[in-house]
């Protein structure tokens, strides 16, 4: 058996794959957080709950309406996105003129309410969501066995991340978004409907969380607490990448997922800690984050 640093190659690649899959979710979630924070200046603590909501919408569509994975892949983010839009219109938009702390407290409260409701009806144990037939089974890559669904998640998340990046960096709508991130009042004085842009951005960020949720459903189980388990790590990712940096959020998401995977191989005891150790070091050396602009 081939060894690298005294570790079997299979084990190393296996953990790197797990890291890459976790990283895919970190990237998609921190991307949504970064987009929302950049424009709305709201630290969206409900992001984990919206991710959970995405998974649950898929689960409920399947169990109650018999709607399968592929339609749910469109419907879940759509429903969570509309939910986000309603939340922004009814509540968040009223808090913009206040201290940013209010937005944080509101979304934190919203997360607790959502989790509480789902915990009341569905308990804390997870509900299984079967892998769609098209992606069941696996492929032997020669050096390791890759479950097809996990390969799909990595590819899908890269498409989503690249698509969102291109939307923001390369389109006219994206240029409105970037400009409004810098100076919302002036962009509005130019005649751009900035309040609408804020609503759509929160909807987009929520939809990204919902999409991550439905993608995650067949891998992790669908559980009311799946979001709160993940969101703390995702916040660390955003801090490392730099608040509000789109590219930073994506790259850091994958990097920290891989770092976690590697740690599992070499020093498993630290694998849950490594992200936070990296965060502490980055905060000491570069407080604005790896990709952040110094304020």
């Amino acid at each position, binding site marked *: 058996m081939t060894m690298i640093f005294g570790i079997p190659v299979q084990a190393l690649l296996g953990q790197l794959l797990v890291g890459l899959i976790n990283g895919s979710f970190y990237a998609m979630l921190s991307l949504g957080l970064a987009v929302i924070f950049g424009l709305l200046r709201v630290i969206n603590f409900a992001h984990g709950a919206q991710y959970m909501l995405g998974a649950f919408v898929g689960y409920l569509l399947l169990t109650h309406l018999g709607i399968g994975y592929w339609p749910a892949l469109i419907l879940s983010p759509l429903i969570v996105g509309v939910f986000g839009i309603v939340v922004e219109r009814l509540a968040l938009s009223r808090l913009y003129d206040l201290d940013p702390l209010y937005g944080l407290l509101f979304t934190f409260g919203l997360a607790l309410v959502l989790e509480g409701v789902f915990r009341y009806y569905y308990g804390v144990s997870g509900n299984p969501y079967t892998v769609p037939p098209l992606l069941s089974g696996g492929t032997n890559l020669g050096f390791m066995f890759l479950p097809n669904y996990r390969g799909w998640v990595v590819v899908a998340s890269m498409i989503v991340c690249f698509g969102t990046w291109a939307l923001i960096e390369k389109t006219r709508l994206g240029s409105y978004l*970037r400009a409004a991130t*810098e100076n919302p009042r*002036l962009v509005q004085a*130019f*005649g751009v409907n900035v309040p609408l842009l804020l609503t759509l951005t929160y909807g987009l960020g929520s939809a990204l969380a919902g999409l991550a949720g439905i993608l995650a459903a067949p891998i992790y189980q669908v559980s009311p607490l799946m979001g709160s388990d993940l969101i703390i790590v995702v916040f660390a990712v955003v801090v490392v990448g730099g608040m509000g940096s789109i590219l930073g959020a994506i790259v850091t998401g994958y990097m920290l997922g891989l770092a976690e995977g590697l740690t599992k191989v070499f020093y498993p005891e630290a694998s849950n800690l490594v992200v936070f150790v990296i965060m502490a070091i980055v905060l000491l050396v570069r407080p604005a984050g790896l990709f952040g602009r110094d304020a």
Partner: protein
Amino acid sequence: MTSAAPLLAVRGLNAWYGESHALHGVDLEVFGGETVTLLGRNGVGKTTTLRAIIGLIRKRTGQVVFDGKDLMQLPLHRTAHQGIGFVPEERGIFATLTVDENLILPPVVAEGGMSVDEILDLFPNLKERRNSPGTRLSGGEQQMLAIARMLRTGVKMLLLDEPTEGLAPVIVQRIGELLATLKKRGMTILLVEQNFRFASRVADRFYLMEHGKVVAGFPTGELADRMTLLHEVLGV
């Protein structure tokens, strides 16, 4: 334009920054095709007047009528669509947007604006830098860009806040030529300017502001007769 109604009519405009009462009943009129300059010392409310007209200051009372429409009732993002553009003192060039993106950022609000190619012919410096970040431009180029991007939108009137501030004399001269070109194309301009010599070359009329009010108004032809007053109020 023979119509006797002014394009922009401001009457009894009051504005506040928080608790601080900054404008105390500004009255002014700008007719179509005119270039009018607001003069006054620092802090008398010239910038505030422009920001209250465009609606960036929401705590305001009085009348602002543009092209027959009441601007006071409109949300900020509807104001530009009436045909009025604002170029702020700090220029407002976006660092995360390229020169090109900065140029096409303000939405087209009416027909009759210039095309991007026409604008770039007018501003050859910008043409060479289309893909660099907006804030990599020099101060003068940023000012050119800030004015240039309004020309695409088809607005009838520009509110320009101190376009020559901090710029070298040769650039100031170019901005003067630019304003003359715009005037020839029929653009109406309300200008705030500290550079009195520059203002006297480009303006048709002046309003003099003191303590948040317009205290005098006169055409450029009467400038010589008014020098005593100007010395007194401006210290020029």
